[in-house]
């Protein structure tokens, strides 16, 4: 399974993703420069975290117009997997592959922490490696991670099981006290209706090697590989 990791000026998690896919999972991985528009050889596109184009204007606003992102939209529209992490999630909402928007954190601060998440749906390609309602811990590092969408969009996301990860307590409880950034419905990650596009603010690639604390992010990649191997 070949992974492509988009590299924007200002991306800073691209190599972490490649370390997971290439070194830990032994999958061929190509770094895709933002001006490259050819993704034909790629099975899975990862839009990594960072500060693409300095996050000027709005996070992800400028990155969405890059040739690599236009190709990523075409890739997603063919039903192929796309993963957006942190800044990548912001870019996926800006480009319209995922609904809603990510705004300044409720308490105005950049948050760098490790937080518990509840895996809401395990029938998605990305979540097959988890148990239903499993509580996992992943790092977050963002200033604009407060998920916003209007009421109709939120109802739609709930109705179609598109909310994949929610911020929660260690016991799995979901309420405002367990919400680090003010995201509506405690949303940490969502997928599109078909399930092939996933965006999340937490960093699974930073929790994939026991050496650097935790491996709760690894099943996200392993689950996807298993799903694609069957398909």
């Amino acid at each position: 399974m070949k992974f492509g990791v988009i590299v924007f000026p200002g991306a800073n998690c691209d190599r972490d993703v490649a370390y997971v896919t290439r070194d830990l999972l032994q999958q061929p991985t190509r770094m895709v420069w933002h001006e490259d528009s050819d993704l034909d050889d790629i099975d899975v596109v990862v839009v990594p975290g960072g500060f693409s184009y300095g996050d000027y204007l709005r996070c992800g606003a400028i990155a969405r117009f890059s040739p690599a992102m236009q190709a990523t939209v075409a890739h997603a529209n063919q039903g192929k997997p796309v993963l957006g992490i942190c800044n990548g999630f912001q870019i996926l909402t800006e480009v319209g592959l995922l609904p809603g928007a990510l705004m300044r954190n409720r308490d105005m601060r950049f948050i760098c922490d490790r937080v518990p998440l509840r895996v809401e749906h395990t029938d998605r390609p990305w979540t097959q490696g988890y148990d239903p309602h499993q509580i996992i811990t992943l790092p977050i590092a963002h200033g604009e991670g407060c998920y916003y969408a209007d009421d109709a969009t939120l109802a739609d996301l709930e109705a179609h099981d598109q909310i994949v990860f929610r911020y929660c307590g260690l016991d799995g409880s979901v309420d405002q006290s367990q919400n680090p950034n003010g995201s509506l419905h405690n949303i940490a990650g969502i997928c599109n209706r078909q399930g092939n596009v996933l965006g999340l603010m937490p960093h699974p690639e930073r929790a994939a090697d026991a050496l650097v604390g935790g491996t709760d992010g690894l099943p996200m990649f392993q689950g996807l590989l298993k799903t694609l191997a069957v398909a």
Partner: protein
Amino acid sequence: MLVFYPQLEFVVPHYSARIYVTLRPSVLDPAGTAVQSGLAHMGYDNVDQVRIGKYIELTLQADTEAAATQQLDRMCDQLLANPVIENYRFELQTLATA
């Protein structure tokens, strides 16, 4: 023999635009709330509804004012504002051609 043609000048009008991007009323503005509390600390406890937006200036060339308006609408819809969370409006002014 050299023939000198009078230089043809197509003067394309130049416009200046002032673009205001504001958060939609349904969207919470934590930055505005923080500024409001700062104003309250200054003694202005009579202030409410502080909302922070963006102001963008640009100049552009277009054949007509209608064409400039149409282009600005597209720029705002696709890049300068995010319609999911923001509204925009702009003022257009014709610049004197040099």
